[in-house]
């Protein structure tokens, strides 16, 4: 039940703020009151969520993510999600996930990812958009921003070839090789070598060689060997390595 249903947002904002703060102190669910406010006055909701005197409470701000559409009608998405992350850094994963699902191809997500995820920048954005047509574009944007560990991580979690291709296209050869192996671990039949060649050039052997230190299982080495049949010199080198490998 809303704790503010009898209050007028245009007149009673001080009271509304006090009631919500009291509600949160008591550990009650702020969602009914928030929904009530969102329906009656989206600007008042935006003021209490991301305004200069926003209520900095994790439960309150976490609940606000369900009203992202309403909040975006009052504030540009870029500023909205940036502000939410700055108000409650612990919520950054949830904020980034909502932002990425609502704006999968937005370029500002790249910088926001760096700001909030640090060394794993790009992971949340790319995982959230792995099934979206903007995924390749996003991989290229994060590669250009130098978000190498994030891209390698996404390659491993999704098995998709785009992270490795984006990394090699941006000249991050070691990370590209690492991402290639990670992708093959998840999806041994995926076209990661083909896509790297399509992004880099017809002779990707220098990149393929950089993958060797990352090969930790015979299964992945055999998979890579299958994809490299067209490069006889490298395939022969891999044959030698595979023979010496003991792990499955």
């Amino acid at each position, binding site marked *: 039940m809303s704790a503010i249903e009898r209050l007028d947002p245009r007149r009673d904002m001080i009271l509304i703020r006090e009631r919500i703060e009291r509600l949160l102190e008591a550990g009650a669910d702020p969602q009914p009151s928030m929904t009530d406010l969102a329906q009656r006055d989206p600007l008042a909701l935006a003021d209490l969520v991301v305004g200069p005197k926003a209520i900095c409470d994790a439960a309150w701000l976490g609940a606000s993510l369900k009203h992202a559409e309403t909040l975006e009608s009052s504030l540009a998405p870029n500023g909205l999600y940036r502000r939410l992350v700055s108000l409650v850094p612990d919520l950054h994963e949830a904020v980034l996930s909502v932002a990425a699902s609502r704006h999968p191809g937005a370029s500002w997500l790249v910088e926001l990812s760096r700001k909030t995820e640090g060394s794993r920048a790009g992971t949340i954005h790319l995982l959230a958009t792995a099934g979206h047509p903007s995924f390749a574009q996003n991989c290229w944007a994060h590669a250009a921003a130098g978000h190498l560990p994030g891209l390698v991580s996404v390659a491993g979690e999704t098995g998709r070839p785009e992270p490795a291709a984006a990394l090699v296209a941006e000249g991050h050869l070691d990370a590209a090789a690492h991402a290639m192996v990670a992708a093959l671990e998840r999806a041994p039949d995926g*076209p990661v070598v083909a896509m790297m*060649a*399509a*992004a*880099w*050039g*017809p002779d990707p052997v220098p990149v393929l060689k950089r993958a060797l230190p990352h090969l930790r299982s015979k299964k992945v080495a055999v998979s890579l060997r299958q994809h490299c049949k067209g490069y006889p010199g490298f395939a022969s080198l891999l044959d030698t390595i595979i023979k010496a490998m003991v792990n499955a």
Partner: protein
Amino acid sequence: MTLVAHLHGAPDRLPFVGHFRVARHAGPVAVAVAGKVSGRGDVQEAFRAARTVETALMSAPLQECTNRNDALSRIWDAIVAIDGCDLGAALGHDLVAVMAAQDESGMGITGPGLGGVWAWQSTELLPLVQGQHPLLGPPGRPERLGGVLTLDAPCSSVVAVAHDHPVPTLKLHGLARRCGVNP
């Protein structure tokens, strides 16, 4: 005597789909081929097709070639002999290739599907073929190749754009990268 050929990449996120490149030296003749096949097809399928072309080019019998024209002919025969099913969805009808051969008396350049060819020198690009020229024709694998451009003064590196390249001009800056040549 070294000779290399390059095909400019497409203006795309994946510029080199289906690209292949081979350089060989046999006796008095040097041969270089660069091209693409199934360039608008599935990435994996195009990759396989391109490797198939490279394998065919590497195994073409050049040892007995006595001159550049003979070498070009054998290279083309090797390409024509590939089963169309191994060349992607278009069965090789979209093949683009710049083929160059050089011997002691000069150099010959030919190939299907080209939109322009340049001599790539260290400080400049010299147009060899542009506009309306018999060397520039449709892609594919005709039984017999069209004309051969003959150069008395050989150049060690040639670069071409495909017939469907949107801007048939080239800039020297960053050209290697745009041809898929990496340090």
